[in-house]
Structure formats: C-alpha cells, structure tokens
C-alpha cells in the first residue's frame, strides 16, 4: 500500500485499538469463532492459542514443530482445525484437546463443510476429508501438485481444490475419488473464494490470472491477468464485489451473476508486495487491507478511492480477520503482535 501519502484528508471512521497480545513468531493465521467469542491465532513458530474476544483469557494448544499455516473453526464453533508446515494437522476442542489427523506433506489449507462436521485438509499433493475424530470420509491422494487452497462450494455440495495446473470439483458423497469437474489452468492455482450466494467461484493463479467460474454451468472466465500471483480474494457479503490482492495491486471488481466483469475495477492501492491481509466485512460493504508497509486501511469500494479509516501499525501486517457481527477486526504482524481494533 502506498503509506501515509494515501491517507484521506478526512478520516471518516476511527480505528481504535481494543487490545493487543504477543506471540513468539510472526502471526500466520487468525480465525474468529463463528459466535465471535474466541480468536484463534497461529504463528510461524508453530504455536496456536485461543484468546477470549476481550483478550483477557488465553488457552494454548499443543505446539506444532513448524509454522501454523491455516486455522478453521467448525460451523458451531465446537472444533478448531489447525494445520501447518510440519506435515501435521489436528482438530482441537476445549474439552478433548488435540486429535491428530494423519497427513503427508505441508498443510496449506483447511476448511469445514458448511453445516457439517466434515473437515477438508490440503496436505502436500493430497486432500483428505475427515470427521472431528480423524476418521476418514474421503481422500484424494497424489494430485498433480501441491494443493494450495481448497473451499467448499455450492453450499457444501462440492469440495473445490486448487493445485498445479488444475482446479478440481470433488463430490465426496457421490463421486468418490473422481473429480466431478476439472478446469485446467496455466501454472499453479493459488487461491479460491466461493461467492456468498454459492453461484460463482473465484480463483487466483501464480501467473497472475484471475478466473471466475459459474457454479451451475462450470464455465470459466479469465477476468484479467496481473503482473504477479493472485494470492488473496474476498467477496462482499452480497456477492456483488470481489476484492483481489495480486502482486502490485489491490483491485475491487464488480461482477455480474455469471462472473463477468462490469466495467473496470476500482484500484484501491498499488502495493510493493502482496497484501498480507484482505477481507470484506461479513455484513457491511467495507473492505479491510493490510500489508508490508504496516498500514491497516478500510475502504468502502465504489464510493471513492480514499480509505474511510487508516491505522499505522508500524510493521508488516501478515493477516487479518473481521469479528463476526461487529465492526471490529483482528490483525497479526510479522513480529508476532496481535491487535484487535474497532471501527468507530
């Protein structure tokens, strides 16, 4: 992001610090429980902790040997899935502690199926779907390359997997190991984001391509091609806008029901690196972004390029997450700081 010079003349909202905590290494993942009462924080040092929403309480989970890369709460907030670089993943719950999930390879992503206790784990070239007790529901071993991202689409009907050269749609209940649909892509698919209305799936690639697929027909469209990898995607709560953090740019696209771009994107920032954190508010048209320059900014895309609010954190922001049902968000930094800030 462009730093102080991009601060608006008039700050419409304040960003106030609610509380802060410190972890032993760079914060790599954040996840609020669905009811907003707990915040899970993972670090590249391998530790994961659960904070109460006010920051007063903290519970540590069993440490991983190497960095935590992904955290995901189950829909009811009963279980927390943790995965990371030490080729390990587990399901943690306050009462039962950690249940290890047998995987091979670096765990890049985890996702619980909506309204279900099925957890999809991307580990190396494999994807495994398990229950909280680690019993296997389905597995998809030896895919073309490392699985970089996965997501449940179509309201949980399909498990979508982004890997080298392809995006696969699996149907764990009906089709077994065969992909129900496969879209070939050039290079590595990096990021996936199903639209909130379950009609479209956005995908970003290492070569800079941004694609959107129509869930009903499977037809894909390359929306644009950026100069570098498209690492982060976030849909607005109503599915009318898609925020895209690619190397060098932060854009917001207006997309129609078929995934076709309506006009040119709003370019909110030019960055010198990929943004560490990017997320639309769960229920308001607000977009938060934070990156290497240490600035947290909140925009309302479509109402002007200037951010509504800015906060200088002073060090690289590595990840961020909105608190469900509130105008507050958590952000993590490269020095291990966790800040929860409120939009006033």
């Amino acid at each position, binding site marked *: 992001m462009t730093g102080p010079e991009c601060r608006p003349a008039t700050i419409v909202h304040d960003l106030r610090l609610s509380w802060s905590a410190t972890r*032993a*290494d*760079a914060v*790599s993942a954040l996840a609020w429980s669905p009811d907003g009462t707990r915040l899970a924080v993972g670090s*590249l*040092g391998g530790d994961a902790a659960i904070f109460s929403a006010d920051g007063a309480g903290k519970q540590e989970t069993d440490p991983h040997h*190497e*960095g935590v*890369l992904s955290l995901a709460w189950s829909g009811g907030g009963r279980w927390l899935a943790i995965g990371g*670089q030490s*080729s390990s993943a587990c399901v943690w719950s306050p009462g039962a502690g950690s249940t290890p999930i047998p995987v091979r*390879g*670096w765990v*890049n992503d985890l996702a619980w199926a909506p309204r279900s206790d099925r957890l999809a784990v991307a580990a*190396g*070239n494999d994807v495994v779907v398990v229950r909280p007790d680690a019993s296997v529901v389905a597995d998809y071993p030896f895919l073309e*390359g*490392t699985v*970089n991202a996965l997501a449940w689409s179509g309201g949980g009907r399909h498990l979508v997997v982004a890997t*080298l*050269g392809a995006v696969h749609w699996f149907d764990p209940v009906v089709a077994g190991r065969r992909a129900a649909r496969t879209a070939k892509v*050039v*290079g*590595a698919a990096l990021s996936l984001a199903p639209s909130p209305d379950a009609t479209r799936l956005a995908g970003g690639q*290492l*070569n800079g391509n941004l694609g959107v697929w129509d869930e009903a027909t499977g037809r894909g469209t390359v929306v644009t091609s950026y*100069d*570098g*990898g498209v*690492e982060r995607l976030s849909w607005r709560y109503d599915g009318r806008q898609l925020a895209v953090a690619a*190397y*060098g740019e932060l854009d917001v696209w207006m997309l129609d029901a078929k995934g076709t771009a309506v006009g040119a994107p709003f370019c909110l920032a030019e960055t010198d*690196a*990929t943004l560490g954190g990017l997320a639309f508010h769960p229920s308001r048209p607000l977009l938060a972004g934070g990156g290497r320059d240490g600035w947290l900014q909140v925009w309302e895309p479509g109402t002007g390029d200037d951010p509504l609010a800015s906060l200088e954190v002073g*060090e*690289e922001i*590595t990840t961020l997450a909105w608190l469900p049902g509130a105008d507050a968000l958590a952000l993590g930094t*490269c*020095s*291990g700081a966790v800040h929860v800030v409120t939009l006033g």
Partner: protein
Amino acid sequence: MLDEPVPVTIVTGWDARRTGELIDQLVCSLESRHIAVVGARRPNSAAAPAFFVESEAEISEQSAGCPCCVVRSDLVRIVANLTRRIRPPEWILLEAAGWTDPVIAGQTFLMEPTLAGLARLDGIVTVIDGSAVGARLRADESVWPDPLAGDQVAVADRVVVTGTPSTDVEDLASAVRAASATNGSAEVIVNLGGEFDPAEVLCLEAFGPSGAAVSAARGPGPTRGADRALSGSAAHVVEAAGVLDQGRLEAWLDALHESRDCRLLRLDGVLAIRGRDRQVIFQGIGSNLNRWRGRRFAPGEPRTNRLVVAGRNLDASSLRATLAECVAS
C-alpha cells in the same frame, strides 16, 4: 524480520547422496548459524539446521504456451514463509539433486516478483562423485549419465568433486578434468570429506551485476574449453572485438533463447554496445535475462565483448561467428 534478502545457494548434482553429504558438511560447519535447508531429504548431520522444509519440485508455467517461463511454485511459498519469521534464516541451502533442474530453481529467484526483496540467489554449486566419473570413463561411457547431469555442471559457479581419502587419485583427476571441460568458468574444488570450509561454496555473490561481470571474465580463452562438446552441455566463452549493434544483439539473444536445437542454461556477459559510453552487463539463467549498466569506458579503451554462454548442444564456433555478425560496421 528481514534487513536484506536472504542468500540462497542451490546445491545440485546427479547423485542425491553426494549433494546430501555436502549439505550435511555445510550444516555441521555452520552449526552456530541459523541455516535453512530446503530439499527432498532431511540432513543426516549431527548438527540439525534451524529449519528443514521438505519440498518436491513443482514446476509452474507463468505464461500460457511458453514452456520456458516456468518457476518452482513450491519455492515461492516456502521461501516467503521462511523469510517472514521473526528470526529468518541467515542462509538457505536449496537441494536440487537428481532429476531436479537447477535452472528452473535458479530462474524462480530471478523471475518471481514475490521473492524480490526476500531472497537473493548467491550461487549454484554442483557436486560430482569423483569415483563414479572415473568409473564411467574407464567403462568408456559418456562422462555424464544424463543430459541433465551435464546441465547441472555447465550452469555451476563452483563444482565440488567428492571422494574419500581412499578414492583413486586418477578418478578424482578425471572428474576434475571432465568438470573443467564442461564448465571452464567454474572453479573446481576437491572435497575428500572431513572439515569443509563453507566459504568455498558460500558468499559467491555470483548473481547480480558484479557477479555477472566476474563470471564473464572467468574461464578459459575462446580457443580452449569445451568446443568439442557439441552434443552435450557446456559453458562456452564467446568473444568479439568492437561495439555491437543493439538490434542485431537482441536478435542474436532471441535466437539463442528460442532455438529448438539447443537449450540455453545460463549467460554472463560484459558487452560494448554502440552509442553507450558504459559497459552493459548481461546475466540470465534459463529464460530470464537481466541487464545492468556497467563501468564507464576509459578514454581510448578498446571495446571488447565477452560472454560465457552455458547450454546444451550449443555450437561454440557458430556462437562466435554469429556474435561477430552483431558487431556494428
């Protein structure tokens, strides 16, 4: 948190055991340092590296239909995460052994924008088993067991011929001669185990303008070296006197990159281009080619051009003849 990019050394070689042994030696020698090893196997050394990240080469096209614009997407992810630690590694040793192509690993660091500022390629070190090369020569086989093994030598900044104190001296000498014939611009060192000075293979600073200029200046003269290795991999010195025409030079470089008869592995050069009062420094690995402004020419200084071009199936005499055609009339 990074003050400056983390240096990366690619340790390559056909025999994964030998590359692993060199990595073990380096990890032991650098025990007090914060070293990361990225590769297919965890080092066996008594001293564990600060980080070990298991990795399989994952080749990703960056441009539709262009088979040479590829990067190692696994490295993009791994290096980005390693360098974001509060205490990032001081050095990354990247193992690229056996069928792993060091050129694609190297061009990842030069092509991929997300790694800019996070990591810099310091050098490519190729490990050769001295006994195995000697045995192949005695059996009258080609020196390198596979074209990729030849590529691994041709692209190197340092070649380490390994053996033990009991390895036949003639075998070691054969391996040194074979390495020098394939890549006369790389320094060849013999390593018989035991203590190993990491400075022999680290801190080479072979990539970047100064490294390219040094690499271009090294090596045999144009009448020696690997001219006979027409069907294999080799680093060739190509020289021409006078100033080059920019347009002809670009066409020459394009033809070199796009040729289906050969594979361009690496290029280091210091050139004089018409209308420029400074040297122009070129360096490329695989499909990537960087160029920088070099030093200003002294008054009356003769204009010369010197390139070290490493590739598979390159014809050195043709390279020289066609570069000479680029000299401005």
